[in-house]
């Protein structure tokens, strides 16, 4: 990978921040966009914008084709069996809520159990928490081991015939841990449970294969993988989608409305009410094509190398504590840490003054914060356009932060 060439594809990376070149290390929150994605959006609005699925004129045909081509691009990217299984949503969060409001709402009963991991982002926790409250269902939490990996023995013993739903972050947005979802899915299926994989962090960084994983639901967010905001994807096995009531209702998702009756549209449109964010879908297609051109395996290998380097260098900062797996082969692209005596929010401000963007806070993963006994962490997260030099700058700035607050006894 020719990183210097790649970086030129991302206009924002040449921006100066506080008189320094931007060092963007908040990729787990959202990624920057290559020119190809920006141009896909401007190309749409300059040339062929029209509402999809309903027009009998050329622009509408072109726009509908581009929108449905985007669905096919997503299908290919995650190797789903059919475009019937690809529904566009606003983001991963909406995708997860869609499951809660439809399949889970219809299928969970009082006393049923929902198994989720301690590493879940609020978006794969709060919907189940609220559902469980409504239904009288019980949430069971898979704990993490000291080394930042899931406790698989605990997972096995939590599963039972009462388990109706299992929710797993494919990759933790805090620890960076890549969880053994394939094995976890197989174990859950043995108990007859449906499995929801939150792929918001994994889809941008590692190769995703629905047919290999065999999960029942999979959610991702376009903005975390070079795409625009406002577009996400819910994959579900078509057997699930077929059995589910629609979520939102309105235009597009119906075949026929009379005053007495309503016939819903075919899959996947049954789940896409109203004018879809076709701009977002078209932008996401350009993002996927960019990722495919680089190759997901190449991206993963490069990021692993970068993470290895980061872990090594960051450990030299005095009083630093790094969370999550220390074995870089178990994680990818994310390093969460704290420095004794320097609060993560202060680290964030000090780094910002050097043009370095990282995140500080609870990372929408408060259960994990509580589990780690902290209220906040700092987090540097990488993408394939980051470099070793940037990590060197990060480490230098961390040392400066530590220096400003001195050593505490």
């Amino acid at each position, binding site marked *: 990978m020719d990183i210097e060439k790649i970086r030129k594809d991302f206009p924002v990376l040449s921006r100066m921040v*506080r008189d320094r070149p931007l060092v963007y290390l908040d990729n787990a929150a959202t990624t920057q966009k290559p020119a190809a994605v920006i141009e896909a959006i401007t190309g749409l609005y300059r040339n062929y914008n029209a509402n999809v699925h309903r027009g009998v004129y050329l622009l509408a045909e072109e726009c509908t084709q581009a929108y449905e081509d985007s669905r096919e691009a997503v299908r290919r990217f995650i190797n789903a069996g059919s475009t019937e299984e690809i529904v566009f949503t606003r983001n991963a969060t909406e995708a997860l809520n869609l499951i809660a409001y439809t399949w889970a709402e219809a299928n969970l009963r009082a006393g049923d159990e929902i198994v989720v991991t301690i590493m879940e982002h609020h978006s794969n926790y709060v919907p189940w928490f609220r559902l469980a409250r409504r239904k009288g269902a019980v949430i069971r939490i898979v704990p993490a081991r000291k080394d930042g990996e899931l406790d698989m023995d605990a997972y096995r013993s939590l599963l039972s015939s009462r388990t109706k739903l299992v929710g797993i972050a494919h990759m933790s947005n805090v620890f960076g841990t890549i969880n053994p979802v394939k094995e976890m899915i197989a174990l859950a299926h043995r108990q007859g449970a449906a499995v929801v994989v939150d792929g918001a962090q994994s889809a941008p960084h590692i190769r995703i294969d629905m047919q290999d994983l065999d999960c029942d639901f999979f959610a991702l967010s376009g903005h975390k993988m070079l795409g625009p905001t406002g577009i996400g994807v819910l994959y579900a096995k078509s057997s699930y989608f077929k059995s589910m009531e629609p979520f939102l209702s309105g235009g597009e998702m119906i075949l026929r409305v009379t005053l007495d009756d309503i016939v819903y549209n075919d899959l996947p449109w049954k789940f896409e009410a109203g004018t879809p964010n076709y701009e977002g879908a078209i932008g996401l297609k350009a993002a996927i094509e960019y990722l495919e051109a680089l190759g997901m395996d190449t991206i993963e290998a490069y990021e692993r190398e970068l993470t290895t380097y980061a872990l090594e260098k960051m450990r030299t900062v005095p009083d630093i504590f790094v969370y999550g797996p220390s074995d870089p082969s178990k994680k990818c692209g994310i390093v969460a840490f704290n420095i004794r*005596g320097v*609060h*993560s*929010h*202060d680290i*964030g*401000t*000090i780094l910002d*003054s050097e043009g370095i963007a990282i995140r*500080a*806070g*609870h990372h929408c993963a408060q259960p994990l*914060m509580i589990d780690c006994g*902290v*209220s*906040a962490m700092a987090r540097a997260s990488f993408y394939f356009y980051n470099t070793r030099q940037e990590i060197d700058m990060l480490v230098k700035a961390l040392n400066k932060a530590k220096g*400003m*607050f*001195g050593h*505490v006894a």
Partner: protein
Amino acid sequence: MSLEELFKEIIIEHYQHPKNHGHLDHPDAKSEGSNPLCGDELQMEIAFEGDRIKDVMFSGNGCSISQSAASLMTEAIKGKAVGDARRIMEEYKHMLQGSTYNADMLGDLEALSDVKKFPARVKCASLSMAVLDQALQQKK
């Protein structure tokens, strides 16, 4: 934007060695608050004597700004009449908002005057004021 404006020595000093940190044996008022963005958490406990704040202590954890502000704020109001404490809090608010303020009334709290140049940090500096306000409202 200079870091030294934000992280003044006195702020780091109060962060690392906070005054009035801990709990009161018999607080008359108690309140808590948090700044979810960065995880700052703060509790305040007050003991009144007539109309005066006889004692005040805070606990919690968070960034240097939120914790030093709590330390400085409790120092500023301890022993004061409730009305005077409120006036100090009012001036402090003006300072954070970038309005004119009475520096004399603020004393050491003025160390936080440059926080307004760091918009993302203003919430950290205001937390102790918000929590204190809640506690004071418990006094009839």
